[in-house]
């Protein structure tokens, strides 16, 4: 027994009707794609240049909302920031992309490491360019980190309320240099091998926990249990050291560094955004009362 209330099944006529409608509809979508459901599902705000939309462009975007919606008109001046912190982060992104691409072609073991680099240089399409980009971006990042620190010091931007963020910055500086240093060993060539040998030999001399350091031997440090052994996974720079350098370089340090970067950026916002150019203060205006913070 058929249910009386059921609507008719759309027939061929309805299909033809739809096809006829589709033409003008597509023209409308193509003429104004910003009105389509697809577009609106991605971008929640309109595009006309109103202050509201300009703010929403930043605030409704997960990547851009690291920024505030508005900033001091003089803070965008290159003469104040030199752009070094931002360029450092951008270089970190370049290094992540090129680094991941390089990882596809690299085995962190003594039998393959050097040959893989030769393959990247000579056989992999654009491999040499990729490796060069990674190398020079890494060196550039050290330069920009140092420049950023110099700028932050020269503008006194470590002063309250940004003391803690300066500390995070010092840690990030250290991690940047460690990232570069661990990467140095990975090609497993003479350059990296001897640089890392010289570098880690210093760890022998660590007081108490190095086997050649002050009071190290006296409390039982040997080449097989000291801090250098922990760094290299052995008493010489060999397969274990290569693997450790690889894991620190590709996983450990980027994770730690990324975490500190999140804190660094978050604290910039929480500590009142960029420090200046602040209005100058006169020596005669310094509060003299005790207990001032």
């Amino acid at each position, binding site marked *: 027994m058929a249910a009386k209330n059921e609507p008719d099944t759309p027939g061929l006529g309805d299909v033809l009707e739809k096809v006829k409608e589709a033409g003008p509809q597509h023209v409308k979508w193509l003429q104004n794609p910003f009105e389509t459901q697809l577009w609106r599902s991605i971008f929640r705000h309109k595009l006309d240049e109103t202050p509201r939309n*300009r703010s929403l462009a930043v605030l409704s975007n997960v990547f851009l909302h690291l920024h505030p919606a508005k900033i001091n008109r003089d803070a965008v001046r290159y003469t104040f920031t030199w752009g070094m912190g931002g360029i450092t982060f951008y270089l970190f992104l370049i290094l992540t992309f090129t680094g991941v691409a390089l990882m596809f072609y690299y085995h962190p073991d003594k039998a393959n490491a050097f040959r893989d680099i030769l393959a990247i240089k000579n056989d992999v399409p654009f491999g040499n360019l990729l490796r060069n980009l990674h190398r020079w971006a890494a060196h550039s990042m050290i330069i920009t980190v140092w420049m950023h620190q*110099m700028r932050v010091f020269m503008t006194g931007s470590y002063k309250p309320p940004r003391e803690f963020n300066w500390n995070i910055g010092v840690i990030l500086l250290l991690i940047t240099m460690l990232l570069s240093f661990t990467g140095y060993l990975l090609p497993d060539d003479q350059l990296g091998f*001897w640089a890392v040998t010289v570098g880690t030999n210093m760890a022998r001399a660590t007081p108490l926990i190095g086997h050649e350091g002050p*009071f190290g031997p006296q409390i039982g440090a040997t080449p097989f249990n000291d801090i250098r052994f922990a760094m290299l996974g052995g008493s010489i720079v060999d397969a274990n050291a290569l693997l450790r350098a690889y894991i620190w370089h590709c996983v450990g340090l980027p994770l730690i560094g990324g975490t500190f970067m999140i804190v660094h950026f978050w604290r910039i916002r929480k500590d009142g955004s960029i420090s200046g150019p602040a209005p100058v203060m006169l020596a005669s205006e310094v509060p003299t009362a005790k207990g001032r913070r």
Partner: protein
Amino acid sequence: MDWKQLWDITTAPDNVPIVILGILTPFYLWYGFREAVRNDRLITQLEADPALAKTHHRRHQPYHPAWDKTVHVWPYLLRIEFLAALIVTAALIVWAVYFDAPLEEPSNPTLTMNPAKAPWYFLGLQEMLVYFDPWIAGVMLPNVIVVGLMAIPYMDTSPLGNGYYTWKQRKFALSGFMFGYLVLWLALAFVGTFIRGPGWMWFWPGETWDAHRVVHEVNVHLHEIVGLTDPVQIGIFGGVVTLGFMAVAGGVTDTLLRKYKPELFRKMNLVQYLHLVGFLVCMSALPVKMFLKLALGIKYVWVTPWFNV
């Protein structure tokens, strides 16, 4: 004059970054100090005219009361960031096309590189190894540098110069930092890169790196000059000299600070003040030891069976 040697060092792919740094550092120093001079001029003007100071907008940048104080990040900041990303990308690609990342022969533990150099950004530390044993140069000093940098915001009590370039209001802080960064860190890295050749010997720029050069170097220990031979006496003598230097340097630093920076002394509490003096003494120890080693050929001041200073 060996121009080829100089050219080889300067254009070695791994040295290109430090050459770039050598160009960028003076440029940005000038760039920053130019802003400082502008602010200082404004500060002098406002200090002379209290009435103006009450109404002035307090920045040297162009100003008009009708202008908005803030601008939208989109587009005014994001377009700069986008442009910076483009320029950095383009520059990196050009660099990567013209300079290949170095690749030496496969690692060989039986064939020592001469000179065995760390990457350029660690050459400041490696150069310090000439003056101090590894437990100081490679372990203690890096830690003192990191802790010292972190302590700066807690020792610098002056609220002046927060968020703007100035020389006038921060002469002491700026000269301290610049001495540490430019002289004790960057200059040493440049020495390590351009001056130190095979055997970590000193070659002036343009001198040929001769691995077989014989240097008649006479290293003496301080106690040998005095003529001590008994190990116990040597240990006590070195300890007295080293700790004595720390005490005297601390005393001198303290006297100078109180004489020339009395306001700094008054504002700091004891913990802050002692740390400031301590870090300054540590900083001064490096140039003092460099002088002892380079000028007088003294290797160790304090020799004990367990460690040497």
